[in-house]
């Protein structure tokens, strides 16, 4: 095959053609389409924006409900000291009434393990001067 040099050839065009009157028709088509396209795009966008704001607001409100609850209950809750003072000075509640209110588990928790060894008892007793009196009595 003979040498082919692009620069030596006469200009080769792409060969692509268009239907007759295509560009005029295209202009018309676009002119009819574009302003609508524009306003549509804007309205969809601003609507979407509005919805997103609404959704965000609802989300914030929903998320703040537990926080709000916590804040309000916290403020109305009595602190330990006030409660104890009230029970001690102002109420006719006896110790037995309180024990009745406690569950078995609670009572067990209240048990204090003193962990007293025999030796400690002996030491204590040997130091006590009145021990003989106690024994004889």
């Amino acid at each position, binding site marked *: 095959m003979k040498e082919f040099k692009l620069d030596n050839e006469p200009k080769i*065009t792409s060969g*692509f053609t268009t239907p007759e009157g295509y560009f005029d028709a295209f202009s018309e088509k676009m*002119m009819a389409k574009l302003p609508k396209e524009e306003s549509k795009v804007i309205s969809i966008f601003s609507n979407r924006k509005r919805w997103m704001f609404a959704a965000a607001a609802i989300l914030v409100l929903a998320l703040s409900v537990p926080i709000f609850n916590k804040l309000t209950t916290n403020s109305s809750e009595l602190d330990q000291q006030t409660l104890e003072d009230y029970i001690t000075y102002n109420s006719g509640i006896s110790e037995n009434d309180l024990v009745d209110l406690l569950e078995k588990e609670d009572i067990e928790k209240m048990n204090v393990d003193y962990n007293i060894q025999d030796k400690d008892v002996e030491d204590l007793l040997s130091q006590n001067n009145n021990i003989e009196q106690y024994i004889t009595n």
Partner: protein
Amino acid sequence: MQDEKDFIKELLDPKTQNVAFQKLLRDYQKPLYHHIRNIVLNHDDADDVLQNTFVKVFQHLKNFKGESKLFSWMYRIATNESITFINQKAKRNGTTSEVMQTKIVDNLKADVYFDGNEIQIKLQKAVALLPEKQQLVFKMKYYEEIKYEEMSEILGTSVGALKASYHHAVKKIEELVKTN
């Protein structure tokens, strides 16, 4: 450049928009069509992509900063739209864009909107075998006669790299045409 800024203002102002857009279409629809057609090859596809291009231009005009020329900005949109289009079309058909483009070029004779002789078909076939970037550079330089400086602004590639690409493309094409 000042003229272009005024023109963009006219395009954005609802009062002057219609006239300005008509001018935009008059000035750019033909070169953009051919740019797109050279990439997507088929008339109906080029028509679709050209519409999308103008819609995008219109939508994004308010964000156009004037950092580049309107011309290169529009070409950039058209190029991106065309490449996205052929990739999506290839994906839909379960093939690659290279295989699809070769197929279209092989059937160019049957295309009612193609009027070319043997050498034109040979050239199209050879171009379709080049890597994507070289194809683009070759088509823009040879078919569309866009200057390297403008091409550089459109494609974001240096003039030197574009010249090298074109040079490689021409060498390969001459080889392919010779052996075919």
